[in-house]
């Protein structure tokens, strides 16, 4: 696989605490991927991951950049946020664990499914976090191997 063969790259800014516009980046990226003619299942899985990642920024970080990188056989997304960081990644990766506030839960978030849901829909997933600095999510979906999401 030739990872140097970058077909498309675009960066998007996500603002923390902006519930009003939360989800717009994921929706925009979804439109782009559909425009590229990618398989609906690939678009669906990546959109779910992007939406979760974007809402994580909206809920917990100050701001972030979502970078979309399209290669011939994979789509890579890197979400780098500036924020508090995650103290215990293993804990946050377990389904049902959440630090969401009552207000977030009232808006239908905070089921503790965000990060596991990204991992489930992606073919590659990595997370790094530094307390007081921020979190970086990297995930990828292979475009040449459609599969059914579990």
């Amino acid at each position: 696989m030739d990872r140097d063969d970058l077909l498309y790259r675009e960066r998007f800014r996500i603002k923390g605490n902006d519930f009003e516009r939360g989800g717009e980046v994921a929706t925009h990226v979804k439109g782009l991927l559909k425009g590229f003619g990618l398989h609906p299942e690939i678009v669906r899985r990546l959109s779910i991951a992007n939406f979760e990642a974007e809402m994580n920024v909206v809920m917990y970080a100050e701001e972030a950049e979502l970078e979309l990188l399209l290669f011939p056989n994979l789509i890579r997304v890197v979400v780098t946020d500036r924020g508090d960081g995650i103290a215990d990644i293993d804990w946050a990766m377990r389904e049902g664990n959440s630090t969401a506030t009552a207000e977030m839960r009232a808006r239908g978030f905070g089921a503790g499914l965000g990060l596991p849901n990204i991992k489930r829909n992606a073919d590659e997933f990595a997370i790094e976090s530094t307390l007081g600095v921020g979190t970086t999510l990297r995930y990828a979906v292979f475009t040449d191997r459609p599969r059914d999401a579990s």
Partner: protein
Amino acid sequence: MRKRSHAIVIDESRCNGCVACSMACPTRALRVRNNLVRAKWERCIDCGACISACRRDALRPRTSTSADLERFKLRVAIPSLVLYGQFGDNVRPGQILHAFRSIGFDLACDMSWMCEMVAAAIDAYLTDCRGPWPKISMTCPAVLRLIQLEYPSLVSHLIPLDTARELAAKLHRRRIAVERGLDPGEIGLFYISPCTALVDTIESPLGRRTSHLDGVFSIAELYGPLLRAVKSNPEASSDEVVSIRGLRWVLASGEIPGMRNVNSITVKGLRDVVYVLDRIESGTFVGADFINTYICDDGCFSGHLTIAGRYAAQRYLHHVVRQLGDPPPVKESRIRSLLQSHFFDLEYPIEPHTPAVDLKDLREATARQQQKNELCAALPGKDCGACGAPNCETLAGDIVEGQAAFGDCPFVRIGQLTREIVSLKEPPRQG
């Protein structure tokens, strides 16, 4: 997939090249070029927004004609239930059905009972079916086409049961042929429609090879003759029994009082439909099991080819419901046995409109998007529509596809001309 015909015809002699239709089109299918409207038909979902937006009648629905009626020995109207709410408090459904006999039809048949049956069938289907959730209704053809075009991954959410209008036509044809001793082909069944979205389901049906209907007339075009007929002869046909539950189903836009699967919502109007479909696709719309979707703001009552205002029409229909009382519902066991015998089934599944792409296509598509992004950054972003495309982003896409020029933007053109004038004013160099 076979090529679709379309529900909308353009009358170039009436078009003055204003951009009202292009700006109104939700799928960006219309452009104005050389002062004439042009359609990218592959993007059209037949919603009819352009027909409402055009003040010069340059866009019209392609409905049936009297010549179409004359092809048949027996001409039958099957009106949308919305028609029952078009004539005011004192006109009953039976009178309206009877009035069709004075305006070129031999008979008009009610379909409210089939609406009740389909509602019950959907309820039973929801009880027994598996995911993906939520299920999405098949009622509004414009929404179906939007899903095929823009949300192909949601095709698997559609409830694979046919519509009440098709099933009613199927049964009416069978019954009338037997009762009147006619060949089924001698009977012409015409749907009386509140909207343009249904027009093309006759020639390009969704989920079946051929439609059980033979044509479509709009409520708007038959309204005058029907009103006169009702006024001059208030007699009602007695052989038509109207289903109250069917009427209620239409009034509530598909939410059925007494429905077992109450965890359903109705989404009306293009903006809201797009909002919800986007979220279903992103996996963030959870909780509801069934979503009824309508492209028009108030469901079929606000169809572009109706006459009575949508609030008045609903009030009139509520009045009809109150007058008729509450008859016993269709038996659930009967619906279940019909479901098991595949009576409600589509002939084949709805297909998404997704062209297969290879790597070469992907390379070209991403390169085009880069160009488009650069053009978008260079265009003024005023989304004025004066270039003939509905907004700057769409113009950028058209330029990349070679269908428009950068100078089509009036702001860009003014800038170019200003620079030319300035350069002309500069004194010629001494040489």
